[in-house]
């Protein structure tokens, strides 16, 4: 699971009002190289929730993104874009869990696939 996916997923348990962002429990992280596409990244920079991405990348052991949301001029920096690229697209949570911030319910991630299915009493 890429952090791009993590940046969109939210806990969907009935009654949970603020299920985003999901916390991450790590068992195994892998890295897969992806072609660097600056235009795509510049577009994504406007759409991601920065804090969720920074916290998630730190959970996965990558600490090179700035904590505070950078100024929009930062997208002209190649160095920044490469770090953003790496965190958003190349890091994968291969095994572990996503944890609901309100209920601590765990959604398992197996072979890189998060399982967001709910039990009957959670719908």
């Amino acid at each position, binding site marked *: *699971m890429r952090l791009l996916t993590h940046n969109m997923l939210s806990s969907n348990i009935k009654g949970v009002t603020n*299920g985003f962002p999901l916390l991450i429990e790590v068992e195994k992280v892998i890295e897969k190289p992806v072609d660097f596409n600056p235009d795509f990244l510049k577009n994504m920079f406007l759409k991601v929730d920065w804090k969720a991405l920074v916290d998630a990348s730190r959970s996965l052991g990558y600490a090179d993104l700035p904590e505070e949301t950078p100024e929009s001029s930062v997208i002209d920096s190649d160095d920044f874009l490469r770090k953003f690229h790496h965190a958003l697209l190349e890091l994968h949570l291969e095994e572990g869990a996503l944890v609901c911030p309100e209920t601590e319910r765990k959604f398992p991630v197996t072979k890189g696939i*998060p399982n*967001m299915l709910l039990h009957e009493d959670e719908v």
Partner: protein
Amino acid sequence: MKLKQLESLLGDLQQFSNPKIELEQYPTGPHIASRLLYTAENSFGDVSNKVVADFGCGCGTLGAAAALLGAEQVLAFDIDTESLELASENAEELELDINFVQCDIRNLVWRGQIVDTVVMNPPFGTRKKGADMDFLCVALQVASQAVYSLHKTSTRDHVRRAALRDFNASIAEVLCELQFDVPQLYKFHKKKEVSIAVDLWRFVPKRNQGNGL
């Protein structure tokens, strides 16, 4: 990539060996899948360099087609473990990089406007009434640019009305009518193969208005 090439690549994908009737797992044939994505790309520019989501991906045909046509990222969602395994084998076979998520589309909660385009061949709602409309409702919340979907031609007026009135679509148009071949997959099918008329729809969500969260 040419349409014929795309159709031929999709024709090599594995299909369900034990389709589940309650999920209405009819495979999206290569003919329909290639036309859906080819039209989305060549008539509307909704695929290449975009983030594309495949809802109810089954064996992954539409998501694979999106990746083959140059989608920057493809997310594929299904409720069924076996479908996701098959879809990821298919993606591997074609050396495509697809992000899979296991979930029930009907209770998907989503943040933000990262997904540009949703493509889907939803359950037609023959076994579970309204299933296709549930998918459409969520798709129009998730997509920021467009939704491509297949619905039975017999439900055309209903689909248009619901999309425009209830699901926040600004445009709902039928791009073409296609024949969907339903092979004899289940015991209750009496005929060897039936063909039903389906519409290929394109929906455009209203911009900057509510996105599900």
